């Protein structure tokens, strides 16, 4: 089962309400996925030459200690803010170095995302509880995706929860199941890609990110995944500038898209969109199979 949602704001005036619009969408999908929940918010850009590292603590940690450890490592002062059991660190790049350091020195920490805008939060439990604890309702940004999980193929832990971020400012949520994920994971491991879990969706995220690292566009990498990934799926993808949706070539897993002058939204079911402002006059449709639908602020600006 599982539920996915996505919201891309066309009207910048709504950016202060991104979290408050996404939260009811996510909680409406509770019946599709009560095991865990997660969301990716593309918020304000980190300052020049800096990125945000969102870190989840799988056991109680002392964030000031972690912060001073990272400061010592980089020999620079850094800022961070806490959100329940997550913290967002604003660091001057050096992602690989910090990852390596945390992996050795603080194995209870898990980096959920990296990027100039992206912050990924996820945890086990009911979507309403997870999103309230993490303060989703107050978050601001230009676009966001979310997931409610009913686990079928791997364990229930924050590490197995969506969204999966596999490159800076890139993340993916998935409604469905992949049947050849073990094979694809093994292939990706052979080229040096590291996995955080045995989850099928993580394979999709890392496969698409890997194709993009080889120079493929998001559109092309998604098209590549139609051949590489076997299963029934609807993907919602967040990238630094936009939002994309793609279903497999049978298109049996649910997806509905809605669009108004102010926003584009997607969900596993219409009821998740029912509370959005202007839904009464939104254009609503089911995305076609094996077709990439995408929206980007850059393209909108060019068209304007």
């Amino acid at each position, binding site marked *: 089962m599982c539920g996915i949602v996505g919201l891309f704001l066309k009207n910048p005036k709504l950016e202060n309400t991104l979290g408050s619009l996404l939260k009811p969408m996510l909680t409406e999908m509770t019946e599709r996925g009560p095991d865990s929940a997660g969301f990716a918010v593309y918020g304000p850009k980190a300052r020049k030459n800096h990125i945000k590292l969102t870190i989840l603590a799988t056991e109680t940690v002392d964030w000031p200690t972690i912060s001073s450890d990272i400061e010592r490592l980089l020999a620079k002062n850094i800022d961070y803010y806490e959100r329940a059991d997550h913290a967002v660190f604003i660091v001057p790049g050096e992602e690989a170095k910090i990852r390596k350091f945390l992996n050795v020195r603080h194995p209870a920490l898990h980096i959920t995302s990296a990027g100039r805008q992206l912050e990924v939060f996820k945890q086990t439990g009911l979507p309403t509880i997870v999103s309230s604890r993490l303060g989703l309702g107050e978050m601001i940004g230009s676009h966001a995706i979310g997931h409610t999980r009913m686990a079928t193929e791997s364990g229930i832990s924050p590490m197995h929860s969506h969204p999966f971020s596999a490159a800076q400012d890139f993340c993916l949520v998935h409604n469905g199941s992949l049947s050849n994920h073990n094979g694809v994971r093994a292939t990706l491991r052979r080229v040096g890609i590291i996995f955080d879990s045995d989850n099928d969706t993580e394979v999709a995220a890392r496969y698409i990110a890997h194709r993009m690292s080889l120079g493929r566009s998001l559109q092309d990498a998604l098209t590549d995944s139609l051949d590489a990934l076997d299963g029934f799926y609807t993907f919602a993808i967040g990238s630094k500038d936009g939002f994309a949706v793609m279903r497999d070539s049978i298109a049996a897993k649910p997806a509905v898209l809605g669009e108004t002058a102010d926003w584009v939204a997607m969900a596993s079911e*219409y009821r998740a969109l029912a509370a959005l402002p202007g839904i009464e006059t939104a254009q609503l449709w089911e995305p076609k199979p094996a077709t990439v639908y995408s929206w980007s602020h850059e393209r909108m600006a060019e068209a304007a």
Partner: protein
Amino acid sequence: MNIVDLNTTSVREFNARLHEVRSDSEADDWQVLNPKGKHSLAVGLQAPHRVGIEGSVGYYCGGMNKSAKVTVTGQCGKGLGENIMSGVIHVSGNAAEAAGASGRGGLIVIDGDASSRCGISMKGVDIVVTGSVGHMSGFMAQAGRLVVLGDADEDLGASIYEADIYVRGETGALGADCVEKEMTPDHVKSLSLLLQQARVECPTGDFHRYGSARKLYNFHVDNACRY
């Protein structure tokens, strides 16, 4: 007129109230507010109700309908009128996948587009779509008529047994064992009456008829080596 506000009445309560009415009762009217995409609205109706739902509904709206007329002023989730037996379902907007799935009788009219697998395994229902239909519509259809005023995507009528599919616009590649068939005067008449019944004004001249080539009915000995 019975007015039901789904902000304050549960779906179960609403359906139960409709089910309390005996099937030989006089027609009665129901106005349903705030559906907000809820599933299984007005399912299993046995009496000649007139149910008007104001807003968009979720899955399986009007499923197993017998005798009632269900009107949705909005859009529909998957499985609209699933296994409909008789009566009429009318939707003013678009319908999601599998509209009219396995329907045995009655009429479904969709003013907008229907998505994929419209009329999947239909067994006697008539479906009229004013817009277009998605891929694999009429999949394994057995009886009834599917009328599409717009276009039909790939694999129309895949593995169709019988049933008549009428499409006015373009079709993608037809599904396995689905072929274009002759529009005889009988078919034109049948289509014309159905459009009248659906209150859709459209000349019959531009329609093409699709149906079964009947090549999958029996095992073909030349295929033995594939098993």
